[in-house]
C-alpha cells in the first residue's frame, strides 16, 4: 500500500493515477466517498494510510546470536577522593598532563585497583595522545569493562595487551620488541631465557635488534649467554655478513663494560702493554713523588694489538671510514671505540690514578684542530662513557670542561643532590633545559624542598626584572619536579606578585600549574603512603 503511494507521488498523480484497490477496505470505502479531485484524494489517502501503518507497527526481531557474555570486574574500585583527582587533570596545562596522570595511574596500579566505569570513556579519550608508557598504564586501570569497550573505540590509538606467549610467538616485530624491552625491565633473567627459546630461529637482523635492547640496559646475568654467542655464532669468519659483524660489535660493547668478562680482561691486558708510569718530572715529581701516567697509541699498526685484523675479528669495529679530521690514525679511532665502553674505574685501577686525573689525561694529551679551534679527541667518547655507565664521577670530571648541549646531557648522570649543588653554584636555576634534565628516578621523584624554593625565588626575581618573560614551559618544569612542601614559598611569592605588575603572567605560568601539580601529587602521595 505505502509502496504504491510512494510510486504515485514520485511520478505525480498526473502521470500515475492512484489504484484504490491496493488500499485496506475501510480506507478505500472512506476515500471513495470523498473528494473527486485526484490530488486531494491522494493526499487524504496518504494521510490515512500513514497513520494506519504507524498504528500497526511492531518491532523487528533480531535473528542473529546476541553476545550475552557479561563483563565482570575482579578488582575493586579506587577510593572516591583518589578517583576524583582525575577531574583536576583538565585544569592543568597539557604539557604536564601526561606526567601527572602517570603518577596517578602508578598509584592506582600499586593499589591493585581500577577506576569506576563512569570515568573510563573520559580517561581513554583524555589519554589518547599520551606517551605509550602512560597509555599502557591506562590499560591497567580501566578494568575488563574498559578493555572491552576499547575494542569498539577504533578511533583511539591504544595497543591492546595480548598474552605474553602470543606476543613472543605471533606478534609483529614492534610488538615483540616492546614486549622484550618491558620484560628486560621487570625480569631480565627471564628475558634472556625467553630469548634463548627462539634464538636459533631468529633472523640475524632480529638478533641485532634484541642485542641492542640488551645493550640499552645490561645485567651481569646476561654475560654467559653473550659470551657463548660471541665465541660461537658471532666469532669471525671470512664470509660473514655485515649484520653479523655488527652483532659482534654490540656484544663486544656490552662485554667490555663488565670487568669479569674474558674479553674485558684480555683487552685490558693487551692495552696495558702501551701503558707506562714514570715519576713526574721536575720539582713536582720530586716533592710529591707522584707517578706520571702515559698511554702510547702507536701511530702505525703493530702485530700485537693495533692492527685491523685483530680489531675486526675480535671487536667488530670499523677498520676503515673513520673521521680523519678528528683521529690522526686508525689506532686512535679504535681506541675511542674502546673508551666508550670500558668503565673508567678499570682505567683507574690499571693506571693507579683517580678518575678525574685519568679523564684530564685523556682530554689534555690527545687533541685535534678544527676551524682554528683545538679540541680533545676523546671528548665524545668520554661523554658517551659517562652516559652509558651513568657515571656521576666521570660526569663531574667532565662538566667543568664542557658548555652548552654537552652539559645538559650529563645532568642525568649526576646524583640529585650533586645536580642541585651544580645548578645552584653555576646559577642555572632558571635554565629550563638544565632543569628539565633533573636526575629524578622512581624513588626520588622531586627536587629537595630547599632547591624547589630556590628555583621559585630565582624565577620570581628574574620575572620582576625588565625584558624577562615567563613562559608555560617554566611553570611546567617547576610543576614537574617541585617538592610537595614548597607550597608556603609558592604562596608567599604569589602574594608578592599580586602587588606588582607581573601578577597575570606569574599566576598563569608559574603559580597555577605548580599549585595544581603539588595539590594533585599530595593527594596521590597521601594514598601511596597509606597502608
Amino acid at each position: 500500500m505505502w509502496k504504491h503511494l510512494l510510486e504515485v507521488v514520485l511520478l505525480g498523480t498526473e502521470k500515475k493515477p492512484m489504484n484504490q484497490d491496493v488500499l485496506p477496505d475501510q480506507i478505500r470505502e472512506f476515500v471513495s466517498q470523498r473528494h473527486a479531485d485526484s490530488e486531494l484524494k491522494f493526499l487524504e489517502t496518504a494521510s490515512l494510510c500513514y497513520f494506519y501503518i504507524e498504528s500497526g507497527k511492531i518491532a523487528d526481531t533480531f535473528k542473529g546470536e546476541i553476545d550475552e557474555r557479561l563483563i565482570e570486574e575482579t578488582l575493586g574500585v579506587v577510593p572516591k577522593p583518589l578517583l576524583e583527582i582525575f577531574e583536576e587533570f583538565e585544569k592543568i596545562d597539557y604539557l604536564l598532563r601526561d606526567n601527572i596522570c602517570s603518577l596517578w595511574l602508578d598509584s592506582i596500579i600499586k593499589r591493585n585497583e581500577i577506576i569506576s566505569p563512569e570515568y573510563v570513556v573520559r580517561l581513554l579519550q583524555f589519554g589518547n595522545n599520551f606517551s605509550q608508557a602512560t597509555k599502557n598504564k591506562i590499560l591497567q586501570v580501566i578494568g575488563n569493562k574498559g578493555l572491552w569497550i576499547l575494542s569498539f573505540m577504533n578511533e583511539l590509538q591504544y595497543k591492546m595487551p595480548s598474552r605474553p606467549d602470543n606476543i613472543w610467538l605471533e606478534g609483529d616485530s614492534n610488538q615483540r620488541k616492546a614486549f622484550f624491552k618491558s620484560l628486560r625491565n621487570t625480569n631480565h633473567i627471564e628475558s634472556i631465557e625467553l630469548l634463548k627459546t627462539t634464538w636459533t630461529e631468529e633472523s640475524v637482523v632480529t638478533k641485532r635488534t634484541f642485542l641492542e635492547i640488551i645493550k640499552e640496559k645490561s645485567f651481569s646475568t646476561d654475560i654467559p649467554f653473550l659470551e657463548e654467542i660471541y665465541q660461537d655464532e658471532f666469532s669471525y669468519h671470512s664470509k660473514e655478513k655485515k649484520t653479523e659483524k655488527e652483532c659482534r660489535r654490540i656484544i663486544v660493547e656490552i662485554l667490555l663494560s663488565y670487568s669479569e668478562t674474558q674479553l674485558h680482561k684480555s683487552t685490558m691486558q693487551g692495552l696495558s702493554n702501551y701503558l707506562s708510569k714514570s715519576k713526574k718530572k721536575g720539582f713536582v715529581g720530586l716533592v710529591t713523588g707522584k707517578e706520571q701516567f702515559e698511554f702510547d697509541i702507536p701511530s702505525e699498526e703493530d702485530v700485537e694489538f693495533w692492527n685491523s685484523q685483530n680489531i675486526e675479528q675480535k671487536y667488530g669495529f670499523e677498520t676503515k671510514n673513520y673521521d680523519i679530521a678528528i683521529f690522526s690514525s686508525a689506532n686512535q679511532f679504535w681506541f675511542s671505540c674502546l673508551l666508550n665502553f670500558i668503565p673508567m674505574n678499570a682505567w683507574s685501577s690499571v693506571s693507579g690514578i683517580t678518575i678525574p686525573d685519568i679523564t684530564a689525561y685523556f682530554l689534555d694529551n690527545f687533541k685535534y684542530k678544527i676551524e682554528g679551534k683545538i679540541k680533545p679527541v676523546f671528548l665524545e667518547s668520554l661523554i658517551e662513557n659517562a652516559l652509558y655507565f651513568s657515571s656521576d664521577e666521570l660526569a663531574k670530571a667532565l662538566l667543568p670542561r664542557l658548555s652548552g648541549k654537552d652539559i645538559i646531557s650529563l645532568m642525568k648522570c649526576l646524583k640529585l643532590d650533586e645536580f642541585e649543588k651544580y645548578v645552584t653554584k653555576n646559577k642555572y636555576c632558571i635554565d629550563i633545559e638544565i632543569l628539565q634534565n633533573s636526575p629524578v628516578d622512581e624513588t626520588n621523584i622531586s627536587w629537595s624542598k630547599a632547591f624547589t624554593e630556590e628555583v621559585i625565588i630565582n624565577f620570581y626575581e628574574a620575572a620582576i626584572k625588565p625584558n624577562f618573560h615567563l613562559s608555560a614551559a617554566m611553570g611546567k618544569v617547576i610543576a614537574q619536579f617541585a617538592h610537595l612542601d614548597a607550597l608556603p614559598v609558592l604562596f608567599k611569592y604569589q602574594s608578592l606578585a599580586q602587588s606588582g605588575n607581573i601578577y597575570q603572567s606569574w599566576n598563569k605560568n608559574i603559580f597555577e600549574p605548580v599549585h595544581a601539580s603539588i595539590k594533585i601529587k599530595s593527594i596521590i602521595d597521601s594514598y601511596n603512603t597509606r597502608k
Partner: protein
Amino acid sequence: MIFTEKQIESISPNPAAYSAGKGLSSKHKWVSFKKNDRAIWGEIKGSGKNPYQVQIDLSAVAYKCSCPSRQFPCKHSIALLLLYANSENDFEKVTEEPEWVKNWLDKRQAKAEKPEKAVERTEEEQQKLDKAKEKTQVDRFDSVCEGVKELELWLKDIVRMGILELPAKPASEFEKTAKRMVDAKAPGLAGWVKAFTKLDYQDPDAWQGEALKIISKLFLLVSTFKNYDKLSPEWQITIKNLVGWNQSTKDLITDKEAMTIKDKWLAAGQEFEAIDDITIQRNWLVGCNTNQKALILNFGSAFSVIENSVLPGSVIEAEMAFFPSVLPNRAVIKIQRNVNNEINELPCFLNTWNEAYCYQTELLKVNPWANDHLLLIKDTRLFNDGKRWIVCDKEKSFMYLVEGFDYQKIMRWLVISGNRSQDISCILRNNKIMPLGIFQGKEYIIL
C-alpha cells in the same frame, strides 16, 4: 542536594563556560564559600574592583552572580557548583545568610508563593482591551486561513507534479513558501515546509518515504484546521499550537483552571536543538508516583540566554502546570519544593519494544501529531549488529538508535553495563530511539 559533575556540565551554557568554571573551582580561588539548608554562596575575585557575589538556591536550583556576564549560569556559578560537588564538607555551614543572599532568596520565595497579580483595570478599560484582543485574534485567524489555503494548493501541486522534482528544487523555494506561512502568521506550518530542506536527498531510500510522511501529516493538519469550528475546545487549542499560536507560560501559571500535577519528577534527559537563530532546550520528565510524562521547553537566542532550571538526572519535587491540549505533555514548573538525586519510587516501565509501539499507538489515537514519546523500558541490551548499534529487549525485538546519536554515550552505556541488560529511559522518535539514561536499582545515571 549534591550535584554531579555530569549534571553541572549539562546545565552549562556551552563547553567553554564549563571549562572556565572548572578552572575557577579550586578552593584557593574563592575569597569565601558558605552554605546553609537553603542555599550556597561565595565571593570570588574577578576583574572588577569588588569580588563577585555568587549565590545558588538549592531548593529550586537557581543561580545569581554579580558579574556582568550574559551567560547563564555564568562561569562563577558553575565554579561554585563544582566546588560544592567536590568539596561540600569544606563549605562553612552558617544558619543566617548574609543580607545579599537573604534578599534574593526571600524575593524568590515570595514570587513562587504569590504569582504576579494581574494589572487592575476598570471595566471600560477591560472591555476595550478584550475587544482589541478579539480583533487581533480574528485578524490573525483570517490570515492563517489564507495561509492554509495556499499551503493546501502547494501540497496539491507537489503531488500532481511528483516529488522526484524535489531534489532539484533549490532550498530557497521551500524557504519562500515557509516565509509566506510566517507572513500569514502560521510559523508552525512554516516549520513543516522547512522540513523538506532537511531531507537527505543523497539517499533515495530515506528521503522519498520521509517526504511522503511529511506531506501526509501536513495535509491532515491543514484539513483539520479547515474544520476548526467543528472541533472541541481542546482540539482547537491543540491545532492552533501546531499551526503556530504561542502559549503563554505566564498565563498558564496564573490560570486556576489549568491542569496541575504534584509529584516527584525525574528529569530523565535533556536535548538541545538549534533552529535558525533559536536554541530549543527540551527537558523530559516523568512523575515517579503518577507516571505522568512532561516536557519542559526553554528557548534561547543570541539576545536571551536559556534559563536552565532542570538538572538532568535530578528528582524535582514540584507542582507542574500543563498547557491545555488533547494530550497534555508540555508543562512548566509552577511551584518547586525540593530537588535531589534520590529516587524513592520508581515510575512504571514497559517490558518490550512492542509494548512501546502499543503505547505509541494509544497516543497517536489521541493526537496523531504526537511525537517524541518518553519511554521507560526494562531489560534492554545495546550491541552492534555488525553495521549499526541496536537496542534489543528481552524478546530479541530491537530498535535502531536515532541518527547521529552521540557515540560517547554509546560507549558510556557499554562500560557502565558491562554487557548486562539494563532498564533505560529513552525517547521514541520516528520509530527510532534516543537513550537518555540507565537505571541501576534506584540510581539513575544520565548518559
